[in-house]
Structure formats: structure tokens, C-alpha cells
């Protein structure tokens, strides 16, 4: 199954469970407190996911390594390379 397929199945499952509980006719409704929490649940989850995304990307952005050493080392290597290549006859 494709990833899209998995998402659609998952959403369909959760969506129908929510719909059954939240939109049930009066006789079959779950107790009031539960209903109050249930109805806005999809929105809550979306917002929660949004916050999680922002926090995660923000954290990863802040901890993104800057490779100062690698860059400095590379500059040294470049110097050595050009000198050696010139010795070996490369015309740049």
C-alpha cells in the first residue's frame, strides 16, 4: 500500500470512530463530559500537531551543526592539493 493509502485508511478509521461517537443520535450518545471533549478533538489534534511540528523544526534548526572545522580543513586541503597538482604538471 502506498503512504497515501495508509494515511487515507488511518484517517478513515479514526474519522469514522469519531463520527460514530460524536454524531450519534440522542439515545446512543455517550455521557456529556465525554461528548464535550470529543467534538472538538480533531481540531485539538491538528493544533497539537502544528505545535509539535513548529517545535521540532525549531529545535532542529537551532541545533543544526556548523562545520567550522571541516571548512577550515578543506581550505588547507585545497592549498595542499593545488601545490601538489602544480608539481605534477596540472595546468589550472
Amino acid at each position, binding site marked *: 500500500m502506498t*503512504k497515501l493509502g495508509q494515511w487515507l485508511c488511518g484517517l478513515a478509521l479514526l474519522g469514522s470512530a469519531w463520527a460514530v461517537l460524536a454524531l450519534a443520535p440522542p439515545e446512543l450518545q455517550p455521557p456529556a463530559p465525554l461528548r464535550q471533549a470529543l467534538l472538538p478533538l480533531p481540531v485539538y489534534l491538528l493544533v497539537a500537531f502544528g505545535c509539535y511540528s513548529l517545535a521540532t523544526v525549531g529545535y532542529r534548526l537551532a541545533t*543544526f551543526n556548523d*562545520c567550522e572545522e571541516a571548512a577550515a580543513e578543506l581550505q588547507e586541503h585545497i592549498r595542499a592539493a593545488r601545490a601538489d597538482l602544480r608539481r605534477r604538471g596540472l595546468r589550472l
Partner: protein
Amino acid sequence: MAAPSGPRPERLSVLLPTYNERDNLPLVVWLLVRTFRDSGIDFEIIIIDDGSPDGTQEIAEQLEKIYGSDKILLRPRPRKLGLGTAYIHGMKHATGNFIVIMDADLSHHVSLYFMDCGKQKEGNFDIVSGTRYKGNGGVYGWDLRRKLISRGANFLTQVLLRPGASDLTGSFRLYRKEVLQKLMEKCVSKGYVFQMEMIVRARQLGYTIGEVPISFVDRVYGESKLGGNEIVSFLKGLLTLFATT
């Protein structure tokens, strides 16, 4: 696929597709040769130049004379024909049992751990992928905007594709030759997305992937572009992979 028993002689074929890399190519080749000679690994470097107008091929010919045509193989093409086909073309001439693909613009800091198959031997991996996002991997020369786009795009990729590898758009990788051949048959995308598709398909086919932190030092010469066009085509490609794999 049976795992090899005991140590086997390794020969690494490095595929270097180039386009206008006149300045960087000799430096990359020099670094590679030095790394391999220091570690005693058997190697060859296959330079696939797509008819660069800046004289890259001429530099490549000089390098061939300096290092020998058994180590530097020139397999040029008449014009820009794309990365995927460059790999296929290069692989036809590769005699190694491991293939390294990397950028020829010095952005991939040549790492010995990568090159001597250290990681590969550790877990007998089919693929070793360089990652900028884990361990002490990282970048140099990127501003905040670029880093944000990179992390944001990677986050989206992780959420949508759950690929099991931390860096999907990186292109510094080591593959077993048979594995790369199989993947090249199956992959259809272009550009950034092509690199992503390789990893996604590899996971589908049950190949094992190891990761090594790498340093990505942004272009020493020449310019690196990440404009609106690239972002749009990345998103299109990501959604395509999402819907088809």
C-alpha cells in the same frame, strides 16, 4: 542475498558526474586519491562530464595523465543529460564491487570512515548514506533561511514518507554495485527527488541502510541555488513519492 563470509577484496568505484566543475574537479580527485592511497583501498574514479563548456573535460584529461587511466576513467557525454542517466552510464564502466556517488563540487567533505567502508563493514549494509542531520554531521556556509528550508523540508519528508533514514536529499552515498543497479532500474524521478526515491525504494526492497554523519561545506567555487523553483519541484516530487510508493 547471502552475506560474504570473511573479508573480501574491495574495489571502490567513485562516480563523479560533472558539469562546469573545472575548478573543483582536480581538488576532489586529489583528495580522493590521497584518501584511498593512505588507506590502501583499491579504487577507480569515473568522471562523467556532460559536455561542460568551461573545459572540465580538458582538466579531466590532464588528471588521467597524472594518475593513470586505470585509476581515472573518463566517460564523457555530449551534453547535459541528467544525473540518473549519468550514474547508469558510469556504472556500465565500473569494475568495483562498491560504488560511491558524491558531488564533484567539494561540498562533500571526503571522509575516510565513509570511503574505507568502515560503516558498511560494521553492519554489512547494502547502502551507507551520509547524513547532515545526525551525530556530528552538519553544514557550513548556509544562512538561516537555507537551514530552515532544509530542516522544514526534511521534517515534511519524515512525516509523509517515514523513510527510516534521516537525510534523504543528501547525495553522498556508498552502494553495493548490485544494489545500485537494481535501484536505478526502478527509480523514475529527477533531481533532488531522485535521491529520495532511491532510499524509499531501497527500503521497499528490503535493503539495509547505515548512516554516517557528514559535513556539507557549501560551494567553495561557483554558486549554490535554492530558489522558489527548486522548492516547488521538491514539493511536487515529494507528493508524487507519497502517492506512488
